[in-house]
């Protein structure tokens, strides 16, 4: 005969398996304190925003300010001082990522998500995951998910990230790690947060929504382009070149030339970099079996230089808008692939006109990527 205490204990043990870590709780507690504070001083925030607007343009263009990071002079490892730099404060550059989670990048923004979540990007077919981050509007076009979303979809918790600009609807003012946003309750228990500075509309639903919302911050690429101070390339870094373009990388990194039997980094939704490495060459072709969902990957530094191939997904025309540097080689930033990975995709144009694609893996410390970027010659 079952005792009610035993039945209750079975139920408690069932839920014990999903008890969030104390990290989650701490992050959320911080989030809640800020929400309260922000709600209590909404007028002050509005005034602050007006003041800030006189310094930065808040129409979304502030996020696209480019930093002129110059390469090292030939006789020294110290980069010349950029002429027009909006340095990011150290506090603003700090990201909150609970242990066991990884950051998911989307345009200029990022969030942290548990590593066992599924990332749905572009027009991937959807395997009806229980927990997912939906990157962009196209994720609604999958055959089995999204179109009926959220009603009828068997998802427990999700976060949808969409590009956003303009005026958010009326709602509660929130502040998360220095990002002021507007929280608007939606149907069926959803909440949408609008962040003008991040260019992000983030809809959350389910058990983990609030925890994930509290981790919002800048993307790895944004932090790459917005250093917190002058960038210099360490003297002991070594040169790594491909097709007329070179970078400098830490001496501890393995250097590898990809052959026809080596899969290209990042194919089949794999992480482009799993350990710090410098790779060059196109690599061999790979066939991926069926749907390959993305997953949050660790922030890992790395460089992959390969022939630039025009991609219809990432239409790219060199212009002043996407040019990061003009000399000694021109370096351009491709539109983000928005598959969540911490990768900046660059194109360097050698003096002879050859275009080299540089996938820059961005680790937890954005300074390493900044130094590699500064070293491109």
């Amino acid at each position: 005969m079952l005792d009610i205490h035993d039945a209750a204990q079975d139920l408690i043990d069932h839920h014990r398996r999903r008890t969030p870590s104390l990290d989650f709780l701490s992050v959320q507690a911080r989030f809640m304190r800020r929400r309260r504070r922000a709600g209590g001083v909404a007028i002050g925030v509005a005034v602050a925003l007006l003041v800030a607007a006189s310094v930065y343009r808040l129409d979304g263009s502030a996020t696209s300010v480019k930093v002129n990071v110059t390469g090292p002079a030939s006789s020294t490892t110290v980069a010349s001082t950029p002429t027009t730099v909006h340095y990011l404060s150290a506090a603003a550059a700090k990201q909150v990522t609970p242990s066991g989670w990884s950051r998911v990048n989307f345009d200029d923004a990022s969030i942290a998500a548990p590593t066992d979540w599924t990332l749905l990007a572009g027009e991937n077919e959807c395997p009806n995951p229980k927990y997912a981050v939906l990157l962009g509007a196209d994720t609604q076009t999958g055959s089995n998910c999204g179109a009926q979303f959220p009603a009828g979809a068997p998802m427990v918790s999700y976060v949808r990230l969409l590009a956003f600009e303009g005026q958010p609807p009326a709602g509660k003012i929130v502040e998360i790690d220095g990002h002021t946003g507007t929280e608007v309750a939606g149907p069926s228990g959803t909440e949408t947060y609008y962040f003008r500075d991040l260019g992000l509309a983030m809809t959350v639903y389910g058990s983990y929504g609030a925890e994930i919302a509290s981790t919002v911050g800048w993307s790895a690429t944004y932090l790459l382009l917005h250093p917190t101070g002058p960038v210099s390339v360490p003297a002991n870094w070594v040169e790594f070149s491909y097709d007329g373009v070179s970078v400098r990388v830490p001496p501890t990194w393995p250097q590898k030339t990809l052959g026809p039997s080596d899969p290209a980094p990042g194919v089949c939704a794999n992480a482009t970099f799993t350990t710090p490495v410098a790779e060059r060459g196109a690599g061999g072709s790979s066939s991926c079996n069926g749907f390959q969902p993305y997953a949050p990957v660790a922030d890992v530094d790395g460089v992959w230089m390969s022939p630039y191939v025009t991609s219809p997904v990432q239409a790219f025309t060199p212009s002043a808008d996407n040019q990061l540097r003009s000399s000694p080689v021109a370096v351009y930033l491709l539109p983000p692939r928005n598959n969540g990975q911490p990768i900046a995709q660059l194109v360097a144009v050698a003096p002879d006109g050859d275009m080299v694609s540089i996938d820059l893996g961005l680790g937890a410390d954005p300074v390493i990527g900044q130094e590699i970027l500064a070293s491109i010659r």
Partner: protein
Amino acid sequence: MTSLPVDWFEGWYRTTHPRVVAAVSVACGDPDMARDAADEAFVRALSKVERVGRMEAPGAWVCKVALNVMRRRMRRISFEQKLLRMPGPVGSTTEPEPHPELWKAVRALPERQRMAIVLRYIADLTEPEIGEVMGISRGTVAATLATGRNHLAGQLAGLGFPDRYEEFRHA
């Protein structure tokens, strides 16, 4: 307690969080909402850990907060569904809870009996603590629990579990 109760909090959280989730889940029938409500309650506890750590019955306090969060959310969802005429979120797809027939029967009890049963047997609160959470006297708690257990045993007998849960009458 003279030392910082942060160390205390972690142990208490690990023990009490699943208990509160289970209690709220039975009370509202939605494990996801229960997790949300429990998370929010413990976040509040963490944000005032010094005060909560010195309470006589922090478990009762966090249960009360979680149940209030649950009620607020249920009201809001109900209002939104009426307003927008939209279906609500689907039920949880996580692994089903054990002994579903029992918890379904608990959910079918009148609210006061249901809450008393949940707080006594899942949240493991004492009768005075249940009285504090529900805003009723200790004597009323005892009477409500007895009535609830009888109703529960009767319901389960009607569902074909006469022996299995007969002991509830005397728990």
